[in-house]
C-alpha cells in the first residue's frame, strides 16, 4: 500500500520536505508503526519528534484531515494521507 506523509510545522523543519510517499507491503498498518517507519528514515525527525517508540507528546498525527491520533493507535490503509504536525495551535 501507498501512504502519503505530510509534514507541517516543526516536523517539516526537521525533515526538510513537505510530503513524501511511503510504500509498505502490508494492506493496512497501525498508524504508530507508520510513524516509526518515518522516524527510521529521518534521523533528524526521530531525534526531535519521538519519545522512544512513540511520537513526542508535543506533536500529533491526523488521518486524512479527519481524526487526530496522539496516544491512541489507528489504522492506515492504501491511499491514506497522514499529517504530522505540532500540537499547539494558539496564535
Amino acid at each position, binding site marked *: 500500500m501507498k501512504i502519503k506523509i505530510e509534514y507541517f*510545522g*516543526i516536523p517539516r523543519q526537521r525533515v526538510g520536505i513537505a510530503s513524501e510517499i511511503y510504500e509498505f507491503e502490508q494492506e493496512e498498518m497501525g498508524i504508530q508503526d507508520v510513524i516509526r517507519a518515518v522516524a527510521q528514515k529521518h534521523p533528524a525527525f526521530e531525534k*526531535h519528534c519521538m519519545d522512544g517508540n512513540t511520537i513526542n507528546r508535543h506533536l500529533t498525527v491526523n488521518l486524512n484531515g*479527519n*481524526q487526530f491520533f496522539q496516544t491512541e493507535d489507528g489504522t492506515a490503509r492504501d491511499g491514506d494521507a497522514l499529517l504530522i504536525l505540532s500540537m499547539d495551535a494558539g496564535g
Partner: protein
Amino acid sequence: MLVDKVSNKNGYHHQYLEVNVSTGECIRHPLETTTLKRTIGGSGLGTQLLLEHESWKYDPLSAESSIVFAFSPLVGSPLTTSAKFAVVSRSPLTGRINDSLASSQFAIAGKRTGNDALLVKGRADSLSILVVDEGNIEIQSATHLAGLSAEQTEAQLKDQFPKDYSFAVIGPAGEKLVHFATISHSGRHAGRGGSGAVLGSKNIKAIAVRGKQRTNWHNTEQLVESARDLSQRSFGPATEKYRELGTAANVLVFNRLNCLPTRNFQKGSFHDAIELSPESMNLAREKIRESCAACTIGCTHVYSVPVDGKPSRARIEYENLFALGPLCEIGDQQIVLEASQLCDHYGIDTISTGGTIAFAMECVEQNILNEPWLRFGDGQALIQAIHLIGQYKGLGKRLAQGSRALAMELGKGTLAFAPQVKGLELPGYEPRALQTMALGFAVGTRGADHNRSGAYEVDFSEAVDRRNADVSQARLAVETENKAAIMDSLILCKFLRGVFDDYFAECAVMLNLITGWNLHAQDLVQTAEEIINAKKRFNILSGWTPEEDTLPERMLTSALEDDQDARLNRQTLETLIKAYNLERGWDALGFLPDSSTIV
C-alpha cells in the same frame, strides 16, 4: 498629589490607585488578601475592580466609565513570561466586559509604582499624559503628541522623560475612538475589544509609569529554582514551534484542515496560503526574532517590509496573516505585511480590522454597500480601507464601529454574515470545522475569542470529532476556559501551557512561593470559576441576554463551501451551550444562580 509610601508585601502591594483625570483626584484603595486570593491579579482583579466601580452602568466611552491596568503577583519575579498586565474595561465594540493582555516593561514599571492596579476614570480637558511616579501623580499636556502613531509617541516620550519610565500609549485610531483601537507599549499591543478607544475617550494619549516599590517573595530560594526550571522547560519541544516559525506556522496546517477562514468565512482554505506561510516568508525576506520583556520563548518574528523604497519591519502573527490575508482573499505577501504594519501604525486590532473589511467587501459584492473599489482580493483596496479607518475618514468612520454596527446600519440581512459574536470579530478558527471552538466563541464573555477559550486545543486532539460536536465537549471547553482564566490572572504567557505536566498544581506552587499562601490545584480551579462568574456577572449587569450567545446565522445554516462535512446547525449549538451553562453551574440559559448579581 502625594500619596504615602506603603509597606511591601509578598507578591502584592495590597492597594490600587484610582485616578480621576477630570479632576486630578487620586484615591488609594486597599486590597484585602481575601479579594486577591479570589481574583489573583490581571484579568481577575481587573474584572473585580470594574464591578466595584459599577462600570457596567456607563457607556464605555463616557467619562464615568473606568479602565483598569491590572498587574499580578508574578510581575517582577524571575518566572519567565511574567512581565504582563491586563487592561480591563467595558468594550465599546461589544458593550460587555473586555480584557486585553500584553507584555512589556510597562508591567514591571507599573507595579513598581506601588500599586497592584491603576484605575482611570473621568475625561481630561485636552489630550494628556497621565504620569504616575510612585506617589506623585500628574496630568501633563500631550497636545504635541496628537496624531502621532504609537511608535512615534513612545519615541517622543522616551526623549521627554527620564530613562526609567515606561509607557502605554494610543495611536491616532485611539484618539479618534475607533472601536477596535489598541493600547501599545514597546511594539506590543493590548489589542482586542477597543481599550485604546476607552483611553482615548478620556483624552489620555499615554500613561507614563515608574517607581522603586518592590514586593517580596515568600520563598526566594525555591522561587529562583522554580523559575530556572520553568525557563529550562521553555526552551524545549513544547515551544519550539513558536521559536522557529512563530504562530504563523498555523497557516498551512489550518489550510490543510479546511479551518483557515477565507473570503469572510465562506471557505476554509485559501489558494495562496503557501505564499503567506512563514516557511515561504523565511525564504523570501530577512527576519529577526524578538522576545517580550522577561521572556525566554522568543516567539516574535519580525520581517523586513520595504515600503516606498524605505526599509521597515512588520511583526507577524497568525492572526494578522489570516485576517488581512485569506479573510480578505489577499495572498500578496508584501500587501499583507504592509497592512499589518499599518494596523500597528494607527493602533488598531488586526483581527477586527480584517474582519470588518472582509465583511464590507462581501456587502459590496452583494451590492448592499456602494463602495465599488472595495473588492475581495484587491490589496490596494485593503490598504486604503485601513488608512480610512485609522484616519477616521469617509467609509472609515462606518468601518471604525466594527462589523456588527455596520451590519445593523446596512440591514438587508447582512447581520447573518457579519463575522462577530457579541460585536467582537472572530479570530482565525473556522467554527464549523472546529466545533468545540464554535462553542467557546458563542459563550465567550468578551465575544468571539481564542485567548479566553482555548477550545481549539480540544478540536485538534483525539478526544473529539472536530466536525461533529456532542455535549461531552462542553466540559472540555469549560476546562480550557478555566486554564485561560488562571493564566490571564497570574499572569503567564499561554505559549507556556504545553510545558506543564500538572497545570493547576504547578501554577499553585508558583503562586504559593511568591505569596506564602497554601493553595492547591483544586483551589485554583475554583478561583478560575469565580473569575469567569465575575465576568458573566458584569455582562448580565450590563444587559447581556442569552440570545447573544450564538454564532453568525450563516454559520448555522450553511456548510463551508469547500468542506461540506463542516456544518453546524442551531439546534446542535444550542444543545452545546445549554450543556456548557449547566457544567458551569449556571441555569440552562446562562444566568448565574445568584442573578440578583451580588458584586
